[in-house]
């Protein structure tokens, strides 16, 4: 009950959203999706969409809600992940979730939804 209340209070599944990578031994990046749908990038990645439609934002909101992102802990360290591997993070509303490694399927689902929505490509 406490966790649910905290989640409801902290998360805003309707955005704005941002996600990216940081730490480890690689240049970081951030992608920000404003509530208006405007997409902004800092760092060495590209996006194929610079503005999301209301429908696309709704799909993202559904992905965030379905994954219950707000109930994930703020930081997850997956066992066996080397420090040189970058962490990935997502922020939905005011709730930020960071994962070092790949042991959080719900996080990965939201990440994939965000990356797909903006047509993220590396390099």
């Amino acid at each position, binding site marked *: *009950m*406490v*966790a649910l*209340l*905290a989640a409801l*209070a*902290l998360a805003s599944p309707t955005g704005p959203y*941002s996600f990216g*990578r*940081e*730490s*480890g*031994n*690689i*240049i*970081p990046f951030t992608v920000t999706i404003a509530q208006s749908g405007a997409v902004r990038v800092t760092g*060495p990645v590209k996006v194929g969409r610079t503005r999301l439609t209301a429908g696309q934002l709704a799909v993202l909101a559904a992905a965030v809600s379905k994954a219950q992102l707000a*109930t*994930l*802990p*703020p*930081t*997850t*360290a*997956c*066992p*066996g*992940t*080397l*420090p*040189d*591997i*970058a*962490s990935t*993070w997502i*922020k939905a509303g005011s*709730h*930020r979730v*960071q*994962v*070092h*490694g*790949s*042991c*959080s*399927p*719900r*996080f990965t689902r939201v990440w994939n939804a965000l990356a797909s929505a903006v047509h993220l490509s*590396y*390099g």
Partner: protein
Amino acid sequence: VSLVIRKLSSSLVAVAALVVCAVAFGDPPSPENPAGRGNDVLGVVPVQSEAGKQAKAGSNLVYHNGPVMHTNATYAIYWVPAGYSVSASYQSLLDRFLTDVGADSGKTSNVYDSDTQYYDNSNGNILYSSSFQQDITDTNPFPASGCKDAYTSVCLTDAQLQTEIDNVINANGLPRGTGVMYFMFTPKDVGSCFGSSCAFSYFCAYHSSFGSGSSVTLYANQPYAAWVPAACGSGQSPNNDDADSTINVASHEHNETITDPLGTAWYDRQGAEDGDKCAWNFGSSLGSTGSGRYNQLIDGHPYYLQQEWSNKSSRCVLSGL
């Protein structure tokens, strides 16, 4: 009306208190939150604008009772089968860098001096005492790709890299142990993955180890950093060669291996080692060669290297402590 307002106020206060408690105590362990390294920061939610700074600056490195490299002997393996190549200058510059780091042993004028403030329980402080032993060109063919990444046509798993390093050591009768480090350099269009995290997307290089006791083998996986310069380039090329970017990330791995060879010595509360805390933080330049700026002169040669973390000054440093 006042009664309704009081009831509403009480409810809001109760919800706020529950939220504060939830945040303060964090979430219980779950499949997504296994106990492990770096887990002691659960419950801390940095605001977005501060998150990167906190991850970089954070707290000082903490000693976790494991060994450090008091001295280090380095070997460079260039795994370049038929059909692949690295330029002569690429290889010679990497060799020169490792030679220069050894030549300036004991000096305080480059990033390696920062390591000397760290220690272990058995033999005291790290010495800046490095020696480049030799390079080995390994022409064994690459195995069938054991992974798939976004950038390269050959993808090697960490297990495949370890197997090849082991082969080279055995074939050449080379030493192992916590005083020896192997750099495994691979050519253009060759990637690698550590689990599902792959080069150029999640790392530009990493260090690790295999074996144990006196036969432990310390190594760094060093993909061709300039293959994806946007992700792994140093941004400066004082030697006018692709090697400049690889040298920067090799320095990161070298310093980390010296201070945390087995992942049991020096890292901060978030799991970051001395190199991670200062990655892509180059500090002030000393000058320019015409092809790019440099911030280090090691044995008289210019390099553009990231800084390394110093507990003593609680910041990233290019020289001294």
